[in-house]
C-alpha cells in the first residue's frame, strides 16, 4: 500500500515537473523560433520603398540590459501568434515597464511633438536604440555622459532640420557647449561628472524655459545649476558687489543672466551684467545716441512697474560684453522679442502686419508699436495700451479714417472705429467698461491679423462663425447645424455667416428695434421673392410701418437655428408650426396655421383663390368707378345750369324780402 502511495506521489511530481519544464521550453523555443528567421543577416523587408534589415544581432543583444527578456516581452502583439506573423508589428511600448519615463516623455517637448505627428520628434529608440540597449553607466552606451552631446547633437547641431525648422531659440548650441567650461571638461578632459545636455535639460522631461516646471526656467535654473555648484549662491552673494539685490530681492539675476547658456566660460566674471551697470548711463534723462542723436534714456520708474521688471536689460538687449567698459558697444541687432515670445512672433510673421514688416514697409507695426518698450504692462493693467478698453484706441492710431492704415485699405468697411464705438460691443467695452466684450483683437486675433479674403484669417467668411463662437458658443453650435451652415451642404454654397446679418463693426443689440426691422432687409438680400411676398401680408405691412411686435422672419424661421420646413427640427415643420404660431396667437389651431404667410395674389398657379378674389374685387371696383364716374361727369353741365337757376330764384326771393337781405349784408360786412 505504502509503495503504491509513494508511486502516486512520484507520479504527481513527475507530471508537474514535466509541465513546468515543458512551459519553459515553450517560451525559450519562441525566441529561438524568432531567431530561426531573424538571425539571417540578409533578411530584409521593404517599407515605403526603403529596404530595412530585419537581422537580429544575438551577440549584441546578449550584452544588452534587456538580455533576460524574450522577444514577446516587448513585441507583445506576437504572443500566441502563428508563423509567419504579420509583416508590420505594433510599435513596442517601453512605457509598459518604464512608466515614469514614459509619463515624463509624454509631457516634454519631444513627446508632445511626437503626439502632434512631427516626423522629427525623437522616440525612445532614437536615443536608446532598440535591441542593443546598454545602461547609461556603460561607457559604450549612447546615453553615457561622453556620448550625450553627440546624441543630442544629431538633431540639435547647427544646420540640422530641427534647428532650422523648429522653434529653437539658441543657436550654435553644440559648438558653444564644446567650447564652454562644461564642454571642455567633458570632451577634452573626459570629466564625466561635468554637466552634459541632460544635466540641465533632464533626460526625459525636456521643457521650454518658458514653462515654469522646466529645470531651465528662470525660477528653477539656480537649483539646476546648484545640483553641481552646491555652494555657488553663497559664493555669489559675496562676489556680487551690487547692493541692488539686497534692496530689491526680486532683481537678483539668475545664473543665465551672466553665464549665458551653452556659452558658460571659464572666466572670472568680476563684473556681472546687472541692470545697475546699464542704468548708470541710461538713467540720465538726456543721454543720446552719438550716431543719430535719438534719446537713449530709460525711465527707471517704467522699468520697475513693467511686466519685465524681473528681466535684466541684457536679456533683451543681447550681445553685451560685460568685460567692456561700455558693455553695450558690442550690440549689433535690435531687441528680438521672439527669443521669449516665439509663438507670438511666428503668428506675427504670418499676419498682415508681419508681412509688411518683412517687406520693409515703413507703416508696418512691430511689437513695440503696440506693446511699448520699457514700460510693458501686460493686458491686465488698465494703463496698458493693450488693456481691452484701450485696444480700440491703439488700433485707431493707424486704422481710424484718414490714418495710415485706413488710407491704404480698399475694402468695404469704413469708419471702423466710430462704428465700433456705437456698436453693442463698443458700447459694452467703452461705455460700460465690460472688459470681456469683443474688441479689435478678439475677432482679428492679436498677432494674427489678416484681411478677410485670406482663408487663414479669423474673419474670413469660412472662419467667422468659429471666431464669433469663441464668445457666442451656444449660438455657434445652433448656427453650425442650421441650413445656413456649410456643414449642412455637401457642395460649396454661397451662404451667409454672422457678419451678413449682424455686420462687422456696426453690430446692434438683436433685441432692439433698429436691428429687428433691419433684419428683414438682410434676409431679403438673398431671399428676395419671399421677402417681397411677406410684405404683402399683415405681418409685413405692420413691420414696414416700423413696428416690431409682429412676426418677422426670425420669429417663425428662427434666428440661428433655421432649418428647411421639411426638417423636423424646423420651427415650421408639421410638428412645430402650431407651437410657433401660438407664441403670438395663443388660440391658434392647426387650421389657423394654414394661413399663407407669404401669399401673393399675383400667382394664379400657386394661389388661385387669392388671384381670382383679387381680380374679382378689382373688377367690381373698376366697374363701380367707371359707372359712377361717367354718371357724375355727365351730370356736371346740368348742375351748372341749375346753379344759375338757383341764383335767379334766390334773387327773386331776396327781392321780395328786402329787409332780411339788408340785415344779412350788414352781418357779412
Amino acid at each position: 500500500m505504502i509503495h503504491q502511495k509513494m508511486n502516486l506521489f512520484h507520479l504527481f511530481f513527475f507530471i508537474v515537473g514535466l509541465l513546468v519544464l515543458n512551459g519553459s521550453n515553450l517560451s525559450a523555443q519562441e525566441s529561438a523560433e524568432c531567431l530561426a528567421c531573424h538571425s539571417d543577416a540578409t533578411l530584409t523587408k521593404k517599407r515605403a520603398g526603403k529596404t530595412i534589415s530585419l537581422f537580429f544581432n544575438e551577440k549584441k543583444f546578449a550584452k544588452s540590459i534587456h538580455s533576460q527578456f524574450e522577444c514577446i516581452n516587448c513585441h507583445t502583439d506576437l504572443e500566441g501568434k502563428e508563423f509567419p506573423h504579420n509583416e508590420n508589428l505594433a510599435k513596442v511600448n517601453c512605457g509598459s515597464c518604464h512608466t515614469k519615463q514614459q509619463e515624463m516623455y509624454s509631457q516634454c517637448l519631444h513627446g508632445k511633438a511626437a503626439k502632434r505627428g512631427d516626423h522629427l520628434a525623437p522616440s525612445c529608440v532614437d536615443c536608446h536604440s532598440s535591441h542593443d540597449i546598454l545602461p547609461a553607466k556603460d561607457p559604450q552606451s549612447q546615453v553615457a555622459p561622453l556620448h550625450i552631446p553627440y546624441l543630442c547633437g544629431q538633431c540639435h547641431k547647427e544646420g540640422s532640420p530641427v534647428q532650422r525648422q523648429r522653434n529653437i531659440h539658441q543657436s550654435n548650441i553644440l559648438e558653444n557647449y564644446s567650447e564652454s567650461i562644461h564642454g571642455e571638461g567633458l570632451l577634452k578632459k573626459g570629466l564625466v561628472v561635468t554637466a552634459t545636455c541632460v544635466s540641465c535639460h533632464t533626460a526625459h522631461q525636456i521643457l521650454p524655459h518658458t514653462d515654469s516646471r522646466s529645470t531651465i526656467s528662470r525660477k528653477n535654473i539656480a537649483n539646476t545649476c546648484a545640483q553641481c555648484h552646491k555652494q555657488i549662491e553663497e559664493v555669489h552673494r559675496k562676489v556680487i558687489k551690487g547692493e541692488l539685490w539686497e534692496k530689491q530681492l526680486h532683481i537678483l539675476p539668475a545664473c543665465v543672466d551672466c553665464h549665458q547658456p551653452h556659452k558658460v566660460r571659464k572666466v572670472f566674471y568680476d563684473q556681472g551684467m546687472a541692470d545697475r551697470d546699464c542704468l548708470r548711463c541710461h538713467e540720465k534723462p538726456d543721454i543720446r545716441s552719438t550716431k543719430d542723436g535719438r534719446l537713449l534714456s530709460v525711465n527707471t520708474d517704467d522699468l520697475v512697474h513693467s511686466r519685465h521688471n524681473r528681466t535684466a536689460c541684457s536679456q533683451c538687449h543681447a550681445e553685451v560684453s560685460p568685460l567692456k567698459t561700455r558693455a553695450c558697444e558690442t550690440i549689433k541687432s535690435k531687441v528680438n522679442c521672439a527669443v521669449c515670445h516665439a509663438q507670438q512672433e511666428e503668428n506675427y510673421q504670418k499676419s498682415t502686419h508681419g508681412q509688411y514688416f518683412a517687406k520693409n514697409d515703413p507703416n508696418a507695426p512691430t511689437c513695440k508699436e503696440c506693446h511699448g518698450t520699457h514700460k510693458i504692462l501686460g493686458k491686465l493693467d488698465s494703463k496698458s495700451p493693450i488693456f481691452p478698453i484701450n485696444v480700440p484706441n491703439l488700433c485707431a492710431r493707424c486704422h481710424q479714417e484718414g490714418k495710415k492704415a485706413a488710407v491704404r485699405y480698399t475694402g468695404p468697411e469704413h469708419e471702423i472705429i466710430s462704428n465700433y464705438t456705437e456698436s453693442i460691443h463698443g458700447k459694452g467695452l467703452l461705455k460700460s467698461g465690460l472688459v470681456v466684450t469683443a474688441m479689435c483683437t478678439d475677432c482679428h486675433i492679436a498677432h494674427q491679423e489678416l484681411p478677410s479674403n485670406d482663408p487663414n484669417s479669423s474673419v474670413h467668411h469660412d472662419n467667422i462663425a468659429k471666431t464669433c463662437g469663441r464668445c457666442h458658443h451656444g449660438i455657434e453650435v445652433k448656427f453650425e447645424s442650421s441650413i445656413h451652415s456649410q456643414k449642412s451642404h455637401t457642395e460649396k454654397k454661397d451662404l451667409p455667416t454672422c457678419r451678413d446679418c449682424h455686420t462687422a463693426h456696426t453690430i446692434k443689440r438683436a433685441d432692439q428695434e433698429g436691428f429687428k426691422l433691419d433684419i428683414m432687409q438682410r434676409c431679403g438680400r438673398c431671399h428676395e421673392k419671399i421677402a417681397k411676398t411677406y410684405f404683402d401680408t399683415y405681418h409685413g405691412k405692420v413691420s414696414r410701418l416700423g413696428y416690431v411686435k409682429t412676426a418677422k422672419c426670425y420669429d417663425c424661421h428662427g434666428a440661428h437655428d433655421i432649418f428647411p420646413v421639411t426638417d423636423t427640427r424646423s420651427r415650421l415643420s408639421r410638428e412645430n408650426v402650431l407651437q410657433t404660431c401660438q407664441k403670438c396667437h395663443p388660440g391658434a389651431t392647426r387650421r389657423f396655421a394654414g394661413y399663407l404667410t407669404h401669399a401673393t395674389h399675383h400667382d394664379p398657379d400657386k394661389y388661385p383663390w387669392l388671384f381670382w378674389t383679387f381680380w374679382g374685387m378689382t373688377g367690381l371696383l373698376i366697374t363701380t368707378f367707371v359707372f359712377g364716374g361717367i354718371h357724375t361727369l355727365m351730370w356736371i353741365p346740368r348742375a351748372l345750369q341749375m346753379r344759375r337757376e338757383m341764383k335767379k330764384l334766390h334773387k327773386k326771393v331776396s327781392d321780395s324780402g328786402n329787409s332780411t337781405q339788408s340785415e344779412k349784408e350788414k352781418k357779412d360786412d
Partner: protein
Amino acid sequence: MIKKLIDNEFVDKHEKQVLRFTRFNRILHAVMIVSFISLALTGMTLKFSYTGWAVFLAKVFGGFEGAGLIHRTAAVFLFGIFIAHIIDLFRRKRKEYGSMKNLFLGPNTMLPTKKDFKDFIGSLKWFLWLGPRPNYGRWTYWEKFDYFAVFWGMGAIGFTGLILWFPEIFTLILPGEVINIATIIHSDEALLATGFIFTVHFFNTHLRPEKFPMDICIFTGRVPLEEFKIDRPAEYEEIMKKGDLDRYLVDPYPPIVIRVIKIFGWTALMLGFSMVVWIIYAMVFAYQ
C-alpha cells in the same frame, strides 16, 4: 374767404324750412362720418404701408397698436350705427308706417322701384339735354344706391374684418387660407368704399355746383322750401296732395349751429379728399 365757405349764400335765416331727416338719422350720419374716416385713415396706413405717408400717420395714431385700436373701436361704432338703423326702421314701421308693406312698398320706400328706373333713364336724357329734369321723389336712385352700398359694404368689409379681428375663432371652422382671402376682400372693398364715398358721394352732396360748397341738409335735416320744390318735385306734390306741409315746416338753425356744422363738414371733406390724393399717389406713383 373762410366766412364765405361756412355761410350759406342762398339761405334766408328766417324762412321756414322743410324737415327732411329725423334727428336720430342725422346723429347716425355724423357718427358714421367720424367712424368711417377713422376706419379709412387707420386702414389705409396698413394698405399703403410702403408710402412715407403711411409711416407718418401710423406714428400719429400711436403705432400699429394705436391705429388698430382706433380701427376696431370705429368698427364697433359702425356696427352699432348699422344695428341702430335697423332697430330704428322697425320702430318707425310701427309708429309711422304701420305695416311692412307700407314701409317697403310705399312712396317713400328705399327699395328700387319702377319710378327709379324711369328716373335713371330720364336723368341720362336730362344730362344729354334730351329731356327735362325728372321729377325726383323723396329718395333718388343714386341715394338708394348709396344706401344699399352701405349694406353691401357692411357685409363684405364688416364680415371679413371680423375674420381678421378674430382669426383664431374663424379658423376653428374655416381653413387658414380664408384669412388671406378675407384680407384681399377687406382691403379692396374698403378701397372701393372710400374711393366711392370720397368722390362720387362727395360730388352728389358737396361739389355739385348747385349745392357748392356743401349741402348741409344731412346735418340740419332742413331744406329751404323753394329749393325743396325744385329739387324734389314729386315729394312736394305728394305732400301738397295730402295737404300736410305744415307738419314738415320747421325753423332754421341759428347761424352759430350752421357754422359748427360747416366746420365739421369741411373737416370731413378735406380728410376725404386728402385720402383720395393719397390713394392715387400710392396706387399710381408708389405702387409696389
